[in-house]
């Protein structure tokens, strides 16, 4: 029997055993859909995190106080010394390094914002005018912290706060109280929404000196540094580390990380997660494979006399094997295709429901899902097909 006839005849069989076929196809489809959807979620999460983190800025290098290394630790610790804090002077020194395009020192804290009888606790960022370009922030009104005027009491409001505190007025030029000091509103941030679990619509930004005064500190939370170019990132990182080591009496008591390194780590972790999730989903396909095998074994038992007839008509064992094989192939092809469609449909639904999550199934996962389904089907049909082909024609004809 040629390939075309084998495929046609087995398709006819698959179609005529409707309930049985639907059940297998469903099991297969659910397995494939699970692979597609779960990897879409995993990869969507990865893209989301990476995207959000990239949008923080370009060519960024972060400077944090303290060593983040687990090995060795801070060498002075044994002598009872505490690591030196990061200061505004450190930040200003870094700004002059040739690989550094600009830098913004950062302090973060919480304070009460009051105006016209309204009161609200808000997150306060202390920084300089450079924060705006480094963080790719945008203003909807007014201007950002003026350059070189760190000692003037200006404040930039997040868009939600601007609406809340000045519901019908022009916030720019108005006065507002933060903690115990009065600030002049210089600008309002464009609405940005949540980013990295941080809602920039509900923050205020004040000059770094005021922030340090407000929080009664002379240390920094972070220094954000933008390297001159992509190729300057690593040199900038080395130069910063070197400069700060010199400034800190030879102690390596700060951590300098690049945005790329953090991105790469996120990317790696979330890719591994996606892969793991795909693996788990693939197990459901293996279960579907066992189902296919069982159903095919039952089919062989049910169709014993038919197999006997085919043998009596002169069908060689190979033809009979191929017929059952093709049957399993159809079932898993249908399961794979429907599962693929179902998975993509679900991923589309997820993207509709959560527009910020780019839940696109990765191509490798869809391919692997469908391929696994087909492979499982084929493997599962090997034993039943071989059993059918081996049947003794006389016994098979009598249905034994």
């Amino acid at each position, binding site marked *: *029997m*040629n390939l075309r*006839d084998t495929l046609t*005849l087995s398709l*006819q*069989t698959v179609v*005529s055993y409707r309930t049985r076929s639907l059940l297998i196809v469903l099991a297969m489809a659910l397995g494939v859909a699970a692979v597609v959807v779960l990897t879409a979620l995993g990869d969507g999460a990865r893209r989301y995190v990476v995207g959000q983190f990239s949008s923080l800025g370009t060519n960024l290098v972060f400077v944090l106080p303290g060593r983040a290394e687990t090995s060795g630790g801070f060498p002075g610790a044994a002598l009872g010394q505490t690591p030196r804090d990061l200061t505004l002077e450190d930040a200003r020194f870094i700004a002059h390094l040739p690989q550094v395009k600009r830098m913004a020192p950062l302090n973060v804290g919480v304070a009460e914002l009051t105006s016209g009888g309204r009161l609200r606790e808000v997150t306060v960022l202390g920084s300089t005018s450079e924060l705006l370009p480094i963080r790719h922030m945008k203003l909807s009104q007014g201007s950002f912290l003026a350059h070189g005027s760190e000692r003037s009491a200006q404040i930039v409001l997040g868009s939600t706060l601007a609406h809340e505190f000045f519901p019908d007025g022009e916030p720019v030029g108005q006065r507002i109280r933060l903690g115990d000091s009065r600030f002049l509103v210089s600008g309002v941030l464009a609405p940005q929404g949540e980013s990295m679990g941080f809602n920039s619509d509900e923050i205020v930004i004040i000059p770094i000196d005021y922030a340090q005064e407000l929080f009664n500190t002379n240390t920094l939370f972070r220094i954000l540094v933008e390297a001159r170019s992509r190729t300057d990132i690593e040199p900038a990182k080395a130069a910063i580390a070197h400069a700060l080591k010199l400034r800190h009496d030879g102690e390596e008591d700060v951590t300098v990380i690049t945005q790329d390194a953090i991105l790469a780590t996120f990317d790696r972790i979330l890719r591994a997660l996606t892969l793991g999730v795909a693996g788990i989903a693939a197990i459901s396909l293996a279960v579907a494979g066992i189902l296919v095998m069982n159903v095919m074994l039952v089919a062989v038992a049910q169709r014993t*006399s*038919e197999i*006997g*007839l*085919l*043998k*009596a*008509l*002169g*069908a*060689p*064992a*190979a*033809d009979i094997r191929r017929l059952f094989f093709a049957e399993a192939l159809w079932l898993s092809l249908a399961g794979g295709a429907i599962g693929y469609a179902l998975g993509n449909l679900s991923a589309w639904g997820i993207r509709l429901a959560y527009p910020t999550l780019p839940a696109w199934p990765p191509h490798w996962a869809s391919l692997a899902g469908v391929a696994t389904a087909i492979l499982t089907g084929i493997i599962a049909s090997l034993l039943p097909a071989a059993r059918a082909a081996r049947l003794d*024609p*006389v016994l098979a*004809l009598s249905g034994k």
Partner: protein
Amino acid sequence: MIRLTAITRVFRMGDQEVRALNGIDLDIASGEYVSIMGPSGSGKSTLLNVIGLLDQPNSGRYELDGSDVTDLSETERARVRREKIGFVFQSFHLVPRLTAAENIELPLMLEGIAPAERTARVDAALDAFDLKDRAHHRPAELSGGQRQRVAIARATILRPTALLADEPTGNLDHRIGTEVMELLEGLHHAGTTLIVVTHDRELGARAHRHIAMRDGEIVADEK
């Protein structure tokens, strides 16, 4: 031409041995019309299965159309069955999912004949067996006589040299059974060797050669 020499077929059931065929010597010339009769369990079906290469004897020699087919491999036996043998069974053995036409088409498919030629030959067979208006019915929608006609059409579509019928009328009433026998005899007249196993004396008597079996042996062979 069929030539069996000292054919033995032994079935083992636990420690019991059944000699279903016990040293059968039998020559059947091409174009003969033979009936095989005998009590239940005498080995008629087993003999037919051996002749049809469905079953293999434990010992003895089988020559079909001049060549030794005793020790052929399963694949070779399948090819000989396809090319030279047509089976007709008591219980018809139609594939329930397939229409009458598709059932008749099966051997052509197995033989790898092109679809266009298949359609033409199936149409001719449907015509010859008066099944034209039943072509697209499934077996469940056919009468017993029609089912057996489909089975005979299927058994003969590849023009086998020998047609082996194991109680072809066993599931049919007398009138329909006679019609089916007449159909088979028509094929015999066209040149096919016809071997019929039957319990029906009257039908058996219609053959030109009568073989009687008992306990796995041929006890009478009359022309």
